[in-house]
């Protein structure tokens, strides 16, 4: 594939994704709301990602603490270690890292699942039986990812703080209660809310990209594999891109 074809394909995907997102917002507020399907998907997403985000979150906090401690020690500011860990995790690392893991685990799964349904005519079967597959398969999954990622991020933030505490007690004699007190003193409302809010956007990106690529998969099993891997690549890129935009927006809304 030459450069022109690649650029053409990139803009085709972006255009298709935009149209797909517009369709999502047009459908999402119309009944029936498929609550049981949304709950089922949220359960599945939670089970799928719980263990991997737990381990990653803990190690994130631990490594962050171990890396930051000597730097702060150089300036005699070791007492700021809990606050530094908390702010790094809550403002940036927790949301972005969780979203990237979520894209790898869940985005690829949605792409493969819907892609497989497309190439084996299951989506056609649903349409012929007078059930709107977009509402039943796409809207429910995108709502589930949009709601689930913020919950997972809050959990990862918490686990990372525990990891951070382990890093702190390697060099300092600090009780957990005092550690938490230092964390709470450092973290403000304006740190927590933007950090969690942007994960709604990241969750939406993972759901809509995976669904779009799976829903429009072609060419049999090759198409399913492509939908799955492309979902991870595109959603990871979009997460980083939107993170940059949202961080800028946050700094405008909360300038201090």
């Amino acid at each position, binding site marked *: 594939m030459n450069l022109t074809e690649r650029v053409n394909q990139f803009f085709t995907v972006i255009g298709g994704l935009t149209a797909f997102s517009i369709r999502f917002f047009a459908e999402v507020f119309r009944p029936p709301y498929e609550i049981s399907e949304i709950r089922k998907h949220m359960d599945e997403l939670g089970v799928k990602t719980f263990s991997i985000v737990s381990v990653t979150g803990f190690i994130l906090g631990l490594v962050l603490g171990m890396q930051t401690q000597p730097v702060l020690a150089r300036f005699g500011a070791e007492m700021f270690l809990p606050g530094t860990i908390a702010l790094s995790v809550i403002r940036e690392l927790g949301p972005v890292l969780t979203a990237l893991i979520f894209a790898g685990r869940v985005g690829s799964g949605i792409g493969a*699942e819907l892609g*497989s*349904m497309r190439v*084996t*005519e*299951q989506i*056609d*079967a*649903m*349409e*012929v*039986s*007078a*059930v*709107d597959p977009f509402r039943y398969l796409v809207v429910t999954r995108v709502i589930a990812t949009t709601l689930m990622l913020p919950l997972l991020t809050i959990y990862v933030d918490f686990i990372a703080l525990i990891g951070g505490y382990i890093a702190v007690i390697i060099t300092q004699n600090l009780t957990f209660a005092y550690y938490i007190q230092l964390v709470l003193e450092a973290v403000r409302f304006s740190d927590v809310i933007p950090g969690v809010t942007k994960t709604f956007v990241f969750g939406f990106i993972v759901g809509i990209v995976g669904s779009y690529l799976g829903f429009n998969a072609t060419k049999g099993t090759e198409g399913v594999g492509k939908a799955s891997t492309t979902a991870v690549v595109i959603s990871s890129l979009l997460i980083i891109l939107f993170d940059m935009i949202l961080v800028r927006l946050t700094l405008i809304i909360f300038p201090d």
Partner: protein
Amino acid sequence: MIKVENLCKRFGNLVVLNGVSFEVPEGQTLVILGRSGTGKSVLLKCIVRLLEPDAGKIFIDGKNILELSNKELNELRKEIGFLFQSSALYDSMSVRENLAFPLIRHTNFNDKEIETKVKEMLRLVGLEDAIDKMPSELSGGMRKRIGLARALILHPKIMLYDEPTTGLDPVTSKEISKLILDMQKEFKMTNIVVTHDMVVALSTADKILLLESGNFIFAGTPDELTISDIDIAQKFLSSKLD
């Protein structure tokens, strides 16, 4: 019941259907016969608007389905059963859930009534024991039967079969042909069967159309087909003897 007029469909430069027209009276079975890749499945998918034709009209019960709104189309689709070439069973659902799915979506039956209906349909296709199995645990023939049971569970007035015996051995193919006839006796539907299997065509059809190069080159009864001197018809008949 079903009337198609001058239907055209192309994919890029490839003309698949070039102005085909036909009619299926109520309660009759029309078989559309043709080699692989001649557009039989495309025609069937146009009839339920899974594909949009480029030109032509499709009337079902006097309504041109190409002019229906989404809501009207979905109402009409509830009266149409469709057996897909790949059976298209929902992988993530058990046989019970596959059959219950249309009932949950389109009827007000309670759980007990749904269970009764599901078991009744499974009994009709001879697979009562498969109720708790997942699609991946079923053989090709069983998948076709379950697909047929799901398509028929809302008691449609029209049944469309897309290559019902593709990939099956000759014995299972005959069983599926018999099942199509049995279901026709049971539910008195209007059927369109798309196939390249002469056994299915001759045993189920009231009328056969032979599709070649985007248009019909033969229209007649099974008996008329067997005495036809059209080259492709002869080849199909000899394939049956083989």
